[in-house]
């Protein structure tokens, strides 16, 4: 019981910390922040249920007024802005990534990369694009066109999520709760 709670809380803190790490620190040349990497890791490391709860806890603190989203954004205002779809999609993305991770027997690196692509990119973009289309009054294809600027960065992050998950599985197999 306590272990579940502390894992959820500490991974919520990890998502926040990854949003505060300066850009360009993770990969050369690609202007990305690590926040969505945190979402992917929540799913691939903690598994579906705990991962989604960690993301929900993080979003609750953002809504309560902590500037924890990348770029120091926060408050209820971000849920009324154009990126609301991505925020709503975050917990679903972590859940789907965790679900994929739990249901495959592939090696951790391959499984986590695939889970991050399906959850952290596929599912997340569906939510993000619908949200942007609603707030900006655009059609879905127009909103999709605007969102694809983030695609190269997110592809890099999915690969990093796979590598990090694999390293964790090698160093401490028991720590990978999604495969426990």
């Amino acid at each position, binding site marked *: 019981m306590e272990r579940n709670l502390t894992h959820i*809380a*500490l*991974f919520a803190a990890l998502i926040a910390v990854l949003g505060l790490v300066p850009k360009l620190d993770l990969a050369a040349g690609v202007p990305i922040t690590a926040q969505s990497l945190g979402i992917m890791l929540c799913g691939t*490391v903690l598994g579906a249920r705990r991962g989604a709860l960690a993301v929900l806890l993080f979003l609750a603190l953002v809504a309560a007024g902590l500037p924890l989203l990348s770029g120091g954004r926060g408050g209820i205002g971000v849920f009324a802005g*154009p990126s609301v779809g991505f925020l709503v999609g975050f917990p679903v993305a972590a859940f789907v990534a965790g679900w994929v991770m739990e249901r495959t027997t592939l090696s951790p690196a391959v499984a986590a990369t695939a889970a991050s692509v399906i959850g952290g990119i596929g599912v997340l973009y569906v939510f993000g694009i619908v949200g942007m289309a609603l707030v900006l009054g655009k059609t879905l294809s127009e909103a999709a066109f605007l969102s694809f600027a983030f695609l190269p960065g997110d592809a890099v992050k999915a690969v990093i999520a796979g590598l990090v998950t694999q390293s964790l599985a090698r160093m401490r197999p028991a720590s990978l709760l999604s495969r426990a």
Partner: protein
Amino acid sequence: MLTLTSPVETWAHRLPAGGKLAALAVVTTALFLVGSPWLLAGAFAGTAFLYLTGGVAFSQAGLRQLWPLWPFVLIVGLWHLWAAEVVQGAAILLRMVSAVALANFVTMTTRLSDMLAVFERLARPLSPILPPRRLALAFALVIRFIPVMLDRMGLIRQSWTARSPRAPRWRVMVPATLAALDDADRVAEALRARGGAG
């Protein structure tokens, strides 16, 4: 850690947080139902007036909070100028900026502890599966561990650069995640030793 609550005390700081959130929900829903650009312009003017009642310093802080919206304003503005649908574009922008600014107003005039207390009250119907004490403990743990993890991220990066001429990049992620997992185990043990998470 700094919150987004404005240090400039306004009349709205004294209103109950739950009431402000309920009013915000009603107004935001109305904004998305209204299509007339004139009504939306009125809502925008009302929002600006609301900020000005808090004083000049408060309004300037509010403007800074809106700054991250500029790429969207630029894109939608150019798009509708090009499509010669100026009125429609203005309605979309007025609605978006007013909705975000009103929500920011509630955040800027409500203390973090009051907002979290409202969330805990809203979560009360879930108490059989999510006891209120456990939720409060989870909030406190996250807030306490963010600075701890930031410090550690700095240490990991320093020890990397002390040993390697290359920049650490994504490799810091492995020790950072591992440390978070270890901390989670240790904090769980400490909680259990002190009578559990309730």
